């Protein structure tokens, strides 16, 4: 379904929209308070942008450097051209280790590759260990936000889910009780796990190490308990140097939640004695996006979620209305590169207000890219005849002043003289909840002409 359709379904329950909007605005506001305290915040963004741009332009070299260093550290490195390959590689590692039970910390990449169903089809249990992710996993839903995957669920819905799946007592949505129960449940899974899968926030070329950021410590818990650790990363996660973490960790935590630093920024470098560590480096369309000059900066993204929190449309339509792994403004510039037709409504799910670009810690020109995708979409995907035609006619009217005047007269007359019920009737989406302006008798042109004529007369 298209974004407008899904968004209007979401908007049927206005209270829910209000609640969703406020919850996310709260996070955006926390971000504001936190970044406004950092001297040089804007330079930090500039720096983040610069490092990412440089890295993308030299990504081949940095990835190879990373591989060499990781191999030297005793890590096994795998390359996957696409989602399918990624899933196969992970599956093979699991098979080799006789793994039946997997714990996974948050990784949007494995969501993008649909790893869970792939493994589950072979009887492997995959447990998402981030609390929000576990909630949506139990609900059999995809995450609706990159940092707050279950932000669309309120605590009462979580209460019900836990009763059904974890056998908890009804608790009127008591968050303390619910988190305690989730913790108990997850601890058990951590202890039983044969393999831990994590995402990667930053992979450092110079050291071959990588950093995983979580607020719950679930990546560490998984990786330190299981004998095998598989870390999955998109190619764009690479940064050249360890010292660059000083830029990105500061940008990420504040932009994501307003925290000065994420609770756990875990640095992994080599497997501990007797354990194994794998890194899977995935392309899956990223080098194609890199080849598009207008859109390559979308690969700067560090998945902080700030553009979602700030987006007035995201807040009022929910992450699922985007129907793509990465929702919100950044998802709307990434997804058309994957499937132009399927995601053709996403770049239009924006007023081009520009808040996303101003909030983005790595200065991606998100709203300009939305505008550019629009131009490509109208040319390359089937558009409603009426839209195409009306744009053409409008273009012609505006190119010729004489026509413009005639049409304007008709429009004003109609607004003045046709009954309100007709003007605001069905095909007019404007009029469903809004009145149209009353058409004035005189346009500005008419008024001005009259004034000029009078001036002449009075001379």
């Amino acid at each position, binding site marked *: 379904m298209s974004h407008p359709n899904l968004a209007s379904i979401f908007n049927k329950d206005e209270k829910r929209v209000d609640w969703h909007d406020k919850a996310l605005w709260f996070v955006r506001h926390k971000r504001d308070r936190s970044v406004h305290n950092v001297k040089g915040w804007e330079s930090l963004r500039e720096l983040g942008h610069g490092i990412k741009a440089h890295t993308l332009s030299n990504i081949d070299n940095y990835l190879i450097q990373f591989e060499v260093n990781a191999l030297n550290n005793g890590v096994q490195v795998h390359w996957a051209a696409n989602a399918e390959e990624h899933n196969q590689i992970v599956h093979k590692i699991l098979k080799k280790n006789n793994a039946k039970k997997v714990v996974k910390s948050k990784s949007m990449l494995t969501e993008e590759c649909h790893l869970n169903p792939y493994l589950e089809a072979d009887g492997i249990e995959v447990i998402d260990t981030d609390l929000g992710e576990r909630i949506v996993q139990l609900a059999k839903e995809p995450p609706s936000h990159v940092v707050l995957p279950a932000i669309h669920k309120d605590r009462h819905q979580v209460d019900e889910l836990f009763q059904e799946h974890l056998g908890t007592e009804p608790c009127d949505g008591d968050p303390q009780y619910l988190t305690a129960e989730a913790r108990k449940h997850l601890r058990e899974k951590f202890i039983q796990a044969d393999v831990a899968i994590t995402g990667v926030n930053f992979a450092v070329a110079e050291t071959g190490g990588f950093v995983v950021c979580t607020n719950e410590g679930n990546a560490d818990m998984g990786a330190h308990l299981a004998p095998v650790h598989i870390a999955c990363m998109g190619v764009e996660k690479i940064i050249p140097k360890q010292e660059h973490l000083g830029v990105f960790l500061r940008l990420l935590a504040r932009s994501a939640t307003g925290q000065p630093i994420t609770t756990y920024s875990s640095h992994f470098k080599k497997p501990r004695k007797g354990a194994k560590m794998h890194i899977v480096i995935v392309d899956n369309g990223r080098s194609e996006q890199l080849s598009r000059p207008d859109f390559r900066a979308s690969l700067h993204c560090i998945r902080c979620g700030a553009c979602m929190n700030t987006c007035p449309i995201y807040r009022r339509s929910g992450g699922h209305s985007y129907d793509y792994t990465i929702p919100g403004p950044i998802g709307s510039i990434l997804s058309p590169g994957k499937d132009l037709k399927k995601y053709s409504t996403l770049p239009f799910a924006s007023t081009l207000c520009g808040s996303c670009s101003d909030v983005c810690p790595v200065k991606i020109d998100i709203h300009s890219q939305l505008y550019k995708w629009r131009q490509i979409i109208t040319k390359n995907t089937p558009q409603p005849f009426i839209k195409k035609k009306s744009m053409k006619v409008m273009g012609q009217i505006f190119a010729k002043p004489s026509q413009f005047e005639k049409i304007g007269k008709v429009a004003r007359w109609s607004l003045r003289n046709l009954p309100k019920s007709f003007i605001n009737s069905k095909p007019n989406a*404007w009029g469903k909840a809004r009145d149209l*302006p009353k058409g004035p008798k005189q346009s500005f042109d008419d008024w001005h002409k009259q004034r000029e004529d009078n001036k002449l007369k009075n001379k």
Partner: protein
Amino acid sequence: MKVGLFIPCYINQLYPQVGIATIELLEKLNVEVVYPSQQTCCGQPMANSGYEYESVGAYNNFVNNFKDFDYIVTPSGSCAYHVKKHYDIIPQTEEVVAVRKNVYELCDFILNVLKRKDLGAAFPYKVGVHKSCHGLRGLRLGSCSEVVEEKYSYIEELLNEVKGTEIMPLKRADECCGFGGTFAVTEEAVSVKMGKDKIKDHLESGVEVITATDTSCLMHLEGLVNRNNQPLKVLHIAEILNSNISSKN
């Protein structure tokens, strides 16, 4: 100083009073304003809908009408922004480059070119300022809440000098109103919800009159206010700056 006035198409046809206030205000400030009568539209409606190529005729018409002016002034941040940002798809002749450089939103022009602040206006009402996004984040007519920078706002600087006007604080000072051109129609549900929330913020702050640098946002908000019979008036900033109302009724 040769100043050309650009009146956006929807103001011309639907809100002529905004154009009239603009011209009167500029004349009060001793600016000799010329209104080229062959002007139509900046081309934004088609371009933002993804039909940039259909707007080339409008772009050329705009440039032809305004190429001979030192400044082009318009009571619309959105149109000024469109000319500046998006007239890059036509050949960048000297004329095009000059037009893109010389186009100004009205408040920006008054404050930063004319260097005038106190315009002698009086308007004894509680005013809520809607900071239209293209003016704010496109033309940078003010600081926005996302960016760490010194606080400023051209429209509020001018309003502060208006006798009797009280600027009311808002909870979300610069969130979008949800107009967004064709977005208002294609994403009707979200657009309306955004507008309703915006109006609620103004009402809760005790605002009597909502104003902005853009009539497009205001048309959307006014449509909602009128439909729901809410006690709010909606006026373009030019209308307020051109007012001389000494006391309420």
